[in-house]
């Protein structure tokens, strides 16, 4: 799932400094699971902001509201009657959720309260690690299930650079060389020939907004 990290309080405070009525919106999806922007975090942020405002003798009206998913228009609809009463919105959802609110309420400034970090796995409660950068051209089939985009500092597609430092990456002694891991995994599976297959350069489609249309749904969404 998507993993996010709360922004520092001072940063959020700066965003909303000039607004008097602030709505803090949570999301019941991924950011609830990674403990960054669910209903509980909305309550915490509200308390922290209220404390900061009282310390600086500023009087602001704040409220919190959590919808099930900010990335789905049917599920943000319930905010419509609430938003009207506020000058600005803080969104604790991922970047997609923030933009979705900004699109729906173009007259209201929408500020992010979390940094969206990665698509990752849960290692433990509150501990997550990136595994995927949604590059749009998955290469895991020939890299032994290890992603060179997220795990190799240079995102190399066709074997290691010349700087491998033992079994570590040249940028840090604490980071394993992704391509060595890929080599070892493929070797273990007797699939070393996969490493020799040259992969074409990635079209960095994430430079533009990508839309996903699943197979069978083309007729519904693409104009002839």
């Amino acid at each position, binding site marked *: 799932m998507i993993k996010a990290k709360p922004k520092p309080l001072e940063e959020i405070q700066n965003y909303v400094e000039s607004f008097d009525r602030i709505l803090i919106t949570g999301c*019941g999806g991924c950011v609830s699971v990674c*403990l960054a922007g669910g*209903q*509980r975090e*909305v309550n915490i942020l509200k308390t922290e902001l209220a404390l900061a405002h009282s310390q600086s003798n500023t009087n602001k009206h704040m409220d*919190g509201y*959590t919808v099930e998913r900010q990335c789905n228009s049917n599920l943000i609809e319930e905010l419509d009657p609430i938003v009207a009463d506020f000058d600005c919105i803080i969104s604790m959802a991922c970047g997609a959720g923030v933009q979705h609110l900004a699109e729906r309420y173009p007259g209201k400034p929408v500020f992010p309260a979390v940094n969206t970090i990665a698509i990752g796995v849960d290692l433990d409660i509150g501990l997550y690690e990136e595994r995927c950068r949604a590059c749009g051209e998955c290469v895991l089939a020939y890299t032994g299930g290890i992603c060179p985009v997220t795990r190799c500092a240079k995102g190399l597609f066709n074997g290691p650079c010349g700087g491998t430092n033992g079994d570590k990456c040249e940028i840090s002694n604490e980071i394993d060389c992704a391509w060595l891991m890929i080599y070892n995994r493929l070797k273990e599976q007797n699939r070393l020939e996969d490493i020799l297959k040259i992969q074409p350069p990635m079209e960095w489609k994430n430079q533009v907004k990508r839309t996903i249309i699943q197979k069978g749904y083309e007729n519904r969404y693409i104009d002839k």
Partner: protein
Amino acid sequence: MSDNNRNKIDTRAIQSILKENKKQIKLGLTMCAHCSMCAESCFLYMSKDYDPEYMPSYKFLNSIGKLYKKKGKVSNGRLEKMRDLVFENCVLCTRCYCPFGINIPSLITLGRRICRSQGVFREYDK
């Protein structure tokens, strides 16, 4: 709203959500023929060995449906049971299908909304 006292049920807040969505809830309750056609469209129901508590109709009838019938009156214990039903037994993938056109995910969402209005929601570190 998010900051309600968890131990004290605010029946009025529940009733106002029920009132606001009365038409939809009533329609769902009257239209459901208990035909269980929705069951197989729920991947959770299928993957939980056909456990009836994962059936989409069961989930909305026993959350928002019950709240509606009881006019919003609910105990803490019951509300927490409902929380498990609407948060744990459903991921809101919105894939369930009812041949009578009942919008099941939307009714389950209403159940969640009522839970949230009372500060009752799923906590992922518990």
